[in-house]
Every structure is written in structure tokens, then in C-alpha cells.
């Protein structure tokens, strides 16, 4: 069958008519298949939600037990019939529980990548390429400028700064799902074993990662009364980026503002946000990963969604690969 009839964009999100479900819908729907737990992909208020066990757990943590009426756990690699189609979930390497969703009917297979990355991440399963007719790829960092460096080098920058400025608190802005835990895990791998202080918004998700066997070491709440200000000197404090512009940040001595994000590659972006130490660490594919993935999967066609669609479409055209933008709305650029 024609792929355009198997899956097509609607204002509520990508819709599969034959299966009667949406993938990562941005408005409440009857039946939703969710790629991963980030708020712009996983929203509360659907009736029936199918996702990996981890994604369901994360949604429960974020939205409470009543985030939907009924759930269905997706086992990675298992094929589940839904209406007239078959769906399967495959690791996406983005955050804990993240999955690509393959939708298949009458010999046509479309893979929806969700958000994905190709490099090693100690906090989640690695991306698995799935052969398909249409690959729907994200393009958050879909411009040839994005070459994200090795994350070990970025962690080393932070460790160097801690030695250079032992009197200052190092405030690391990192998204509370995925990025924060990955930064902490990478710091532990690099041999940093001092306590790491976390903002309250991270506590439950960090506990959850621990319970899933992802060791994060000694984590402590970054809540100490004002008289104890000096105790954060030389400490690493991880919190959601929004918190650092907040009154919350006033408790720390002479903080070094740090932001861990793929956007930090562009100097003006770092400068605008008042970031002193940019850490270029992304949970999305950079440009070489995006094009290598397309080259590896060799889909008949590429559809490009959320991000900088035009450059990736152009690249596909230059390679002789059919490609078009999907113009889905409602998904954030990470960090914006």
C-alpha cells in the first residue's frame, strides 16, 4: 500500500487510520503510541497508551497514575497487531525507554524514529537500525554545522573548571529526563565520586533510573539553608536549565553557569543565555549521525519532522533519495 495512506500528519499528530492510533499526539486522543517520555512527545490525557515499560513508568512519575485510562506495555522487538496493521518498538538510544515505532501493513513498513542518537549512552539502550520503506527522522540538529564532539571531552571541561575554580558552585543546567542522568553517569565514569547535588525536579527521575540499575552515585538534594551557602563551594549542582534564572539559584556562592545541550555548539547561543561553560552534549543525532543513519537504513523514502527539515531534505535529494518535510507542529527544539 501507499505509505501516505498508512501514516499521515494531522493537527493532532501522525495518524494511522488502519490501526486507529496516533504516534506522539500533541492533543488528547483515544489511542496513542508513545516513543519516549519527553513532555512534547508524551502528554497526559489520552485514553489508551502503548509504550515501553520505562516510558509508561516515566509518564506515571511525571503525570501521576491517572495520566491515561489504560496502558499497554510494548516489548522491544515484539510485533503487536493493532487493527489492520502490526506495530513494533525498537530502541532509539535517546533516553531511558525511548523507542522507534515501526508500523507495517500489506508489506509496507514505516519507521518513526521519535528522537534518537547514535553514540553510546550509559543510561539507555543503543539505537537499532530497522530496514523500512519510509524512515521518518527527526531533524533537531539537522544542519551541517552540528558536529557534536566526544562527550568525554565535554565532561573533562567541567572537571577542569572544578579544579580551577574550587570556590565556585558549578551549576549544570540539564533536562530532567535523560540529559541530567546521562551527565551524572558520565561524570561517574570519568572518576568523579564526590556527592552531586540535584534540584528537586530531578529527584524522582534520578531515583527511577537508580531503580532500573543505572548507578548515579551519591546524589543529594541541593536544598540547604542560606547560612550554609559555602558548603556548595566547588560542588556540582544539576538542575533544569530554567531553574538557574530563578531565585532558586541565589543560594549558591558565585556560581559558574553551565548548560549541557547540543545547542551550545553555537557560541552566540551560549553567550545569549549567559552560559560561562557550555557543554556540548546532546541526546539527539548530530548531522553526521543523521546522514549516516539514512545511509545505513537505505529507506525508499525519508520523511523529515521536527527540526531543521530543509537541510536534511536537500541532502537526501543530492543523494537521490526521495525526501519530504512533514511539517508536524507541537514538538520543541530541545532547550528552547
Amino acid at each position: 500500500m501507499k505509505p501516505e495512506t498508512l501514516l499521515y500528519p494531522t493537527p493532532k499528530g501522525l495518524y494511522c487510520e488502519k490501526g486507529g492510533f496516533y504516534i506522539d499526539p500533541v492533543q488528547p486522543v483515544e489511542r496513542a503510541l508513545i516513543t519516549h517520555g519527553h513532555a512534547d512527545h508524551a502528554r497526559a490525557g489520552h485514553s489508551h497508551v502503548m509504550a515501553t515499560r520505562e516510558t509508561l513508568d516515566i509518564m506515571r512519575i511525571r503525570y501521576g497514575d491517572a495520566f491515561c485510562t489504560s496502558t499497554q506495555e510494548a516489548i522491544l522487538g515484539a510485533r503487536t497487531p493493532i487493527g489492520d496493521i502490526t506495530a513494533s518498538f525498537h530502541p532509539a538510544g535517546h533516553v531511558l525507554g525511548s523507542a522507534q515505532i515501526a508500523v507495517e501493513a500489506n508489506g509496507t513498513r514505516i519507521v518513526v524514529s521519535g528522537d534518537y542518537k547514535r553514540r553510546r549512552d550509559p543510561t539507555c539502550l543503543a539505537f537499532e537500525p530497522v530496514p523500512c520503506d519510509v524512515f521518518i527522522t527527526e531533524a533537531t540538529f539537522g544542519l551541517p554545522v552540528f558536529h557534536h564532539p566526544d562527550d568525554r571531552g565535554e565532561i573533562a571541561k567541567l572537571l577542569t573548571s572544578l579544579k580551577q575554580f574550587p570556590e565556585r558552585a558549578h551549576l549544570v543546567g540539564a533536562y530532567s529526563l535523560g540529559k541530567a542522568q546521562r551527565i551524572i553517569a558520565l561524570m561517574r565514569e570519568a572518576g568523579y565520586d564526590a556527592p552531586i547535588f540535584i534540584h528537586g525536579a530531578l529527584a524522582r527521575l534520578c531515583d527511577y533510573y537508580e531503580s532500573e540499575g543505572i548507578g548515579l552515585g551519591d546524589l543529594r538534594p541541593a536544598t540547604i539553608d542560606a547560612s550554609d551557602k559555602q558548603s556548595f563551594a566547588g560542588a556540582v549542582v544539576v538542575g533544569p536549565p530554567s531553574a538557574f534564572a530563578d531565585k532558586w539559584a541565589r543560594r549558591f556562592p558565585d556560581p559558574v553557569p553551565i548548560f549541557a545541550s547540543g545547542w551550545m555548539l553555537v557560541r552566540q547561543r551560549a553567550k545569549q543565555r549567559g552560559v560561562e561553560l557550555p557543554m556540548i552534549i546532546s541526546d539527539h543525532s548530530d548531522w553526521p549521525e543523521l546522514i549516516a543513519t539514512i545511509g545505513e537504513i537505505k529507506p525508499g523514502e525519508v520523511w523529515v519532522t521536527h527540526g531543521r527539515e530543509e537541510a536534511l531534505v536537500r541532502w537526501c535529494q543530492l543523494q537521490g533519495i526521495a525526501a519530504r518535510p512533514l511539517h508536524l507542529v507541537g514538538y520543541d527544539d530541545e532547550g528552547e
Partner: protein
Amino acid sequence: MRAFAELLDRLVLTPQRNAKIKLMTDYFRAAPDPDRGYALAAIAGTLTLKTVKPNVLRQLVLERMDEVLFRYSYDYVGDLAETISLVWEPPAESKTTTGDLSLGTVVHQLETAGRTNVHGLVRDLLDQLEGSSRFAFLKLITGGLRIGVSARLVKQALANLGNVDITEIETLWHGLSMPYVPLFQWLDGKADKPELDMPAIFHAVMLATPVGDNDLASLDPKDFAAEWKWDGIRVQLANLAGTRRLYSRSGDDISGAFPDILEAADFEGIIDGELLVGGTMRTNRATRAFSDLQQRLNRKTVTRKMLEEYPAFIRGYDLLFSGGRDMRPENFLTRRAALSALIEKAAPSHFDLSPLVPFSSWEELDRLRKDPPDPVIEGIMLKRLDSPYTSGRSKGPWFKWKREPYNVDAVLMYAQRGHGKRSSYYSDFTFGVWTKDDGKDVLVPVGKAYFGFTDAELEVLDRYVRNNTVERFGPVRSIRAEAGHGFVVEVAFEGINVSSRHKSGVAMRFPRISRLRTDKLPQDADRLETLLAMIGQPETNLAQPGEPI
């Protein structure tokens, strides 16, 4: 190259002075010679490399890359060198290169390459360097390096490295050149202090301390001479053994911008004085305001028209060397007598002597200070008659006693989050005064201040900003400012500069927020005309907005 590139990246984003110094000192300690010497030159602005035209770089990148993809990338990043550094991909076979190329190697290869080989060399180097290093390299060869570090700050970092006084670095600075190996050897404690054979070197200047609350009570007016403190820039003019140099007070060589002064210096020696624009007292013409001097500053060369319209001269304060004779151990009166004799014979259009201000009591001097006879005076200098000329700022021999600051009521227009301790506060404020534009009253910015207020007042300001934001641009918020709704502050300032960056055409010098005027509405704030009249500046003298200065 990687360590240098990382240093640059951090310096650009680090606002605090001490943190910048620390970053540089640590780099100089860890980096080998001659790399650190080239880095020093790059930061201090003394590195001269062959420059490569933007078009050449564009060609190089388009050899490898689709033009449309390049255009998308450039549109997104907005800076050519940065775009190329980010999109550049070495060919697959050269990815296994020999590790980090040193800054010294890069500079050496550029220096020895023939004109015709530059194209290929730049391509090779781009292939061998990675990420940040590529960016630093491109900025070096396009001459576009902007780091936000003053020459004085680098010198302070060097002083910290060797645990020596900054005046020692300033004195040596112009006698040394890239890659500064003897300097670093000395700072590392591995060699003696370099001996300079160049004449006309810079000698660290003598500085004054401000008059404190009870300082004068215990001092006898008879022990001091008073001079006006002129509102120009403090300079040192050296002419020895055929070498002439004009230095700023921190030892920057500004000779290039003042050929008129160098040419007129027909005496042998080193004098200390104020650089001003206008006529000398000996030609009976008026000294002009700082904003006129500003037209001549920060230029590498100067046009004939500039020389005619903004003639510069030096008002002599002191004499360090008379011919080859070191006058610094002599007392003030002896040095002044010698200076007076020297200036008597020098060109009247370019040199005069700073006059003494006769007084018999501190009260009398205080009255003179508050009402000086010339608008280009910014206060009084007090100099102990028996004091030798000593470098640096020690309390006792010289005092400065500033005129009262100007005050206006202005309206807050924009606020930006601070840095470090203040990163969660809106603590940097741009404020404006009223002027007529197309027949309507509008606010135009005249200055920016981030101090003067107490911590408690900062809480009030921060709250006001958060509750009255009209628009956000990155870390900046524009604040509601209408005739009947807004926040008025009293601003104290020392004078004004011409500014092409402000729509008003002016920018305050050393502004600080001295009082919150919660009792006033924006409609009660001052007007631009008032501000200009205050400092005796005719409006017509100001550069038009947007005009380069």
C-alpha cells in the same frame, strides 16, 4: 592548539575579571614555549599574520560542500569563520592525523608559506585541526579575534604567573616581541629579568589615591601643590636616542593615532601629561571636551582632516627623564621647574604646562573643586612637594579630589541578568531620558549601570523588572516605560561620551544608580537637552546616530 582554542572559548564567555586572569595565568603556566608566546600575542593584539580574505575561505568550503547547504548553515550561525569551522569535514583518509597541531607550528607554517601556497595551506590546516581549534585558527587568519580582554588584563595574568608587580611587565612590554620566550623564562624563574636595549621604553606611571573622608584633616596645605585634573587621557611621551613613543597610562603604544604630537616633540626626555584636544593655554585657545578627544582615540592611523579638526596636545604634569637623566628621584618642585623650562622651548601649539592652583586652606580648595573655571576639569590633584616620582598607586604623595558627579533622573528601559553572584538577578540596567522625535516625546537610552544600589534596592529593581516585562530578547528584558508608568532612578555620572551605539548619540561615563526615585513618574524624568547643557556640550557637536566614530 586545542588548549589555546579552549582558552579563547572560555575567555569570551567569562565576564569576571578575576576569572579571566585565572584562566590566562593557568594557560600560561601549562602551555609550552613558543605556543604561549604566540597566544599572548594573539590576546594582546600584537600578533600579525598574513590575513586570508573571506572569499578565499568561502571558495575552500564550497570545494567540499553543496552551496545550498552552506547557505542554510551560514544563515543559521551568522558568522563566516564560525560557520566554516563547524561545517568543515576533513576527507575520510586524513582523519587519522598526528594528534594536536601546536599553535607554534601553525604560526610557523603561515609565516613561511609563499603567497601562492596560502590557499592550499589553509585547507591542509583546516583538515588537521578540530572543532574549536579550527575556529580559533580561522579567527586568527581573518583578523577577527575578539576576546574581550584588555592588554592590562593579560599583563596582570603574566604578573600573577611570575608573582611580580604588573608595573614590571608594563615597563618591559614594548621592548619585547613575539613569542616572548625571555619574558616567560623570567616569569618561570628560569632566567634573569630581560634587559632591554630599546630606548624610549614605557615607565610605569605614578597614580593618585582618592581623597577619603578624613584624609585632609591631618595634612598641612603648605606641604602640597594643587593642579587641575584635566579630563583627557593620561599619557607618557618618550623621545630618546631617536625613538619617539606615546604610551597610554597602562603602557599601550598609541603613537599611531597621534603623529602630530610625535612630530612636535623636539626635546629629549620622557614627560607625563594629559592628552587633550583643542588649543593650548599658550595659544590662548580653549581646551575641548572629552568627546572631541574620543574622535582621535582607538585609531591605528589618522587622516589629515582629523588632525586639523581635532588637534591634539599634551598638558605637562611631570618629567621622568630630562635627556638621559633620570629625574624620578628628585622632588616635585625640582621636577616641575625642569619640566617648565622644557615646555617653554617646546612647540606652543602642542605642549603647555598644567597650571598650579594657588590655595591656602582645604576649605578654599574645596570651593574651587566644586566650581572649576573650565568645563574640561574633572577635579583637583594634590601632590606632595617633597615627593619623588614613584610608580604605582601608594597612598600619601598624590591625591585626586574629584568634582561632584552630575545627577539626572532617568527611566529604566532594559534590564539584563547579571553574572556570577548576580546571575539570578536583573542587575544590569539601561536607562533613558526624554527627547523629541518627530514631534513626539520619546525615551532614548543614555547609559547602562550595574552598581550604585544596595542589595535591598536590587531586590526592588529585580522584582519590578520581572513584573513589568514587555518583551524578552535572550537574557535582556525590555521594561514598561511610559510617561505615566515606569521606574525612575537617579543616575550619577562623570561626563558623557559620543556614542554611535546609543540612539541619543551620547553615553554617560561611569554612571551608577545613586537613588531609586519611587516617588517620581517617568514624565518627571530629565530631558536629553538638560543633560547636554549640564556638561556644556552643544548638541551640534555630537555624532549622528550610526555615524562611525
